């Protein structure tokens, strides 16, 4: 066999191996979580808040954390989207190519992406002190939106950058403003990518524990106001795993299954909802 063919096969092998490793890790995580969690899974887990002694193995569920996490990640995703969209539209349609401000903004987001979530938690906490907020849903939403903002912005940025210059010019040539073009052409063309960016950010937000520990706090009750503390699934898992009781630890795994299911359901629903708006995309 000639040398180039061997080289081709070696690298193909390496690529397949790494793809398989990623896929297998995912399967193993899911299998572990489901196998350990399934015995503890019951309707009460998703329909009840923790009763007295829940963490000692008594009755109840984690509805507090399911609702808390949904509010929190949903709110943070909404807030981050409201900030991200104008930023990426500015970077791609308004800023001149080679603009220093644009380059600096992109660089900042790249750096912020690498900041550990506990730092966002601490930063959110200082802001809360400044605003005289207690640990609350609002505090958590602010901290998590900081955490997911760089992820969402950079993901959207990469998608919008792929829009061909000619498509923009075709719209401008009809006498449209940049804003009209952004709204009616660019967002339509990039909707699936924008949605992916939002979903990635949502997944990151709902799965993070460190940023909410000081900011959203934890409670056994479902939050009924932005100014009340809110429970979250990752912290709920953490507290249950931290108990010495095997039956409570099993519930932690069941909670992890629920967390995964929430992310999955949200992803599927949003794909279905946006699927019908994407048929006009120009390839």
């Amino acid at each position, binding site marked *: 066999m000639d040398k180039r063919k061997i080289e081709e096969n070696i690298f193909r092998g390496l690529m397949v191996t790494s793809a398989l490793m990623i896929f297998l890790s995912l399967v193993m995580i899911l299998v572990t979580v489901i196998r350990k969690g399934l015995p503890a899974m019951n309707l009460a887990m998703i329909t009840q808040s923790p009763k007295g002694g829940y963490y000692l193995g008594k009755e109840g569920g984690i509805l507090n954390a399911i609702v808390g996490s949904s509010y929190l990640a949903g709110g943070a995703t909404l807030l981050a989207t409201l900030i991200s969209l104008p930023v990426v539209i500015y970077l791609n349609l308004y800023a001149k*190519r*080679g603009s220093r401000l644009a380059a600096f903004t992109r660089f900042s987001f790249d750096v912020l992406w690498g900041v550990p979530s506990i730092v966002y938690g601490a930063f959110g906490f200082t802001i809360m002190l400044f605003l005289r907020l207690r640990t609350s849903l609002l505090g958590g939403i602010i901290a998590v939106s900081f955490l997911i903002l760089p992820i969402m912005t950079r993901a959207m940025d990469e998608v919008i950058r792929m829009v*061909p210059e000619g498509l923009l010019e075709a719209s*401008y040539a*009809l*006498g449209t403003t940049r804003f009209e073009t952004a709204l*009616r052409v660019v967002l339509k063309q990039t909707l699936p990518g924008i949605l992916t960016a939002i979903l990635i950010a949502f997944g990151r937000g709902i799965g993070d524990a460190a940023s909410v520990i000081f900011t959203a706090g934890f409670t056994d009750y479902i939050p009924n106001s932005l100014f009340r503390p809110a429970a979250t699934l990752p912290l709920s898992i953490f507290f249950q795993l931290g108990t010495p009781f095997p039956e409570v630890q099993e519930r932690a795994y069941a909670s992890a299954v629920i967390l995964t299911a929430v992310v999955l359901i949200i992803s599927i629903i949003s794909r279905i909802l946006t699927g019908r708006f994407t048929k*006009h995309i120009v390839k």
Partner: protein
Amino acid sequence: MEFKTHISVQNLNIFYRNEQALRNITVDIPDRKITVIIGPSGCGKTTLLKSFNRLIDSVDGVRISGKVLVDGENIFDSKVEVTRIRKKMGLLFQKPYPLPMSIYENVAYGPKIHGIKNKKELDRIVEQYLKQASLWEEVKDRLNQPASNLSVGQQQRLCLARGLAVEPEIILGDEPTSALDPKSSQRIEERFLELKTDYTIVIVTHILRQARRLADYVIFLYLGELIEHGPARDIFENPKVKMTKEYMEGIIS
């Protein structure tokens, strides 16, 4: 040949960073005629065309001096609203760029943005301009399908209809048939010949035969300089400058 001037280019210089793309161009483009800009690639044809509707503005590091008067108004004047200038001109690109929406919405896009909301009125506009671009018969039963499903040739005619729908005075074409098959090219050329009774048309091409078929007036550019311009017959049959003659004969390209 007597004609009325529609676009008047006066001492136009355009620089990309340190490179000069157009050198002191002065030329008058006649009203309701087809003007063809010819010249080898990289000679500034597209730059000149894109300066007319100020798409040149968004190019990085561009500097412009001189004037382009459209209907007597200098389009580079800082008081001029660029969207109004662009509305006066429809532009066809080398490759058609349908917008990410249905066939109907592509044509209605411009009129909607410029304030037409009435559904009946929009229906009328869509039909009228699709007919004018000779696309109506092929798409009238599938107006709500994505524009990207059309063939490239159909897409280019859709872009023509979309440009006409904002009721411009001028049609600009930047090698508008270069991505099309011969049959589609021919249909686009036929449209231009029909449309010149109502519109001023300016086309960039590097295909000399196409220039001969279409041109009433010819502008020959070489390396950013205006070498010769004049009525088509004079330029093609009796060029005054040696370089024009050599280009026509294929000695330089």
